[in-house]
């Protein structure tokens, strides 16, 4: 691909379109499946979250950045790895501390999930260099997340 333009991406049988369609299709299927089982609310919530994330990702993926078109890499950008390590270390200690606080169970779970998601995001963005990758790889990397939400939420809200 000589230059990544919006038109070029549209012409190309792009990964973005394929994955975006796959995700929206998955979300739709999640909703239909939930309807058949009589579990409209949970499945629709999952499907809507999935479709929203999917749509956002498609928009992101179609915005090329300079490094997507560069023909040579003058220097490889990366974060301060030791700083990320320190942040992960501190957040692990925080997690263990929060888990045994005398707070309500819901508050503790929310805080723990937030910290875990934050840590996971740090690893993915900086250690796996996702932050410096083309946006279309972001789309690919995030594509299973809506599916994961649909999978868990649909079964979780099922009543029998």
């Amino acid at each position, binding site marked *: *691909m*000589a230059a*990544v333009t919006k038109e070029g991406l549209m012409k*190309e049988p792009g*990964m973005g379109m394929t994955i975006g369609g796959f995700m929206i299709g998955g979300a739709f299927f999640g909703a239909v499946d939930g309807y058949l089982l009589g579990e409209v609310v949970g499945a629709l919530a999952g499907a809507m979250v999935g479709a929203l994330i999917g749509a956002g990702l498609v928009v992101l993926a179609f915005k090329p950045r300079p490094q*997507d078109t*560069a*023909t*040579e*890499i*003058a*220097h*490889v950008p*990366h974060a301060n*790895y*030791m700083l*990320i*390590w320190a942040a*992960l*270390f501190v957040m*692990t*200690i925080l*997690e*263990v501390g*929060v*888990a*045994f606080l005398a707070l309500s169970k819901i508050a*503790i*779970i929310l805080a*723990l*999930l937030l*910290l*875990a998601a934050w*840590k*996971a995001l740090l*690893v*993915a963005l900086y*250690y*796996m260099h996702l932050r410096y*990758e*083309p946006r*279309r*790889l972001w789309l*690919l*990397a995030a*594509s*299973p*997340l809506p*599916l*994961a939400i649909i*999978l*868990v939420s649909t*079964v*979780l809200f099922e009543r029998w």
Partner: protein
Amino acid sequence: MSQQEAVVVYPRHPMPGLGVYNLKAGMWIFLLSEVMFFTGLIGAYIILRFAQPDAFPEPGVLLNVQLTAFNTFVLICSSVTMVKAFAAVQNGDQRGLRLWLLATVFLGTFFLSIQAIEYYLLGSHGFLPTIAGYAAEAGGPLYGMTFYTLTGFHGAHVSIGVLALIFTSVKAFRGGYTPEQLGGVEIMGLYWHFVDLVWIILFTIVYLI
């Protein structure tokens, strides 16, 4: 430009599709299948826990959180040594690449050793992944089943990662990686960081919540 300011400039071949080289695209696609694999396991854990809240003891009652928190720290350290190995090969530092890779192999093995000790200690308290070994005070069958399935599958991933790391190290000692040819180190790193990422979530969900 002085010597210190010189940076490595190497050609970047046109990469259609995802905009990354095939090796990396392949590893990412594999990791996506792994995300769904662990979603199945973690999702089952969440669903079972919602369905049977009494079968799961409070955090710290049965599991040794301090030991596992230390183990989490070991795995985080192994992630930083892995990324340091990649940074070394990017800068053409062969010695650094080998040393950081060896450090990662060591830390990965250390993590597995601590997990083995943890399993041994839990087993000696009657918390075993066998039907006969389930004690009622240890949460009953559901807890043992989910705990050993989740941590066991993660441990298997770390074991495979350590084997792959040994392979990568041997190749590094033979001079198989250069700043132009570093795909092997990068995708090894991607797998290793993914395993670390999964542990971050498992540690939170299984040990702390």
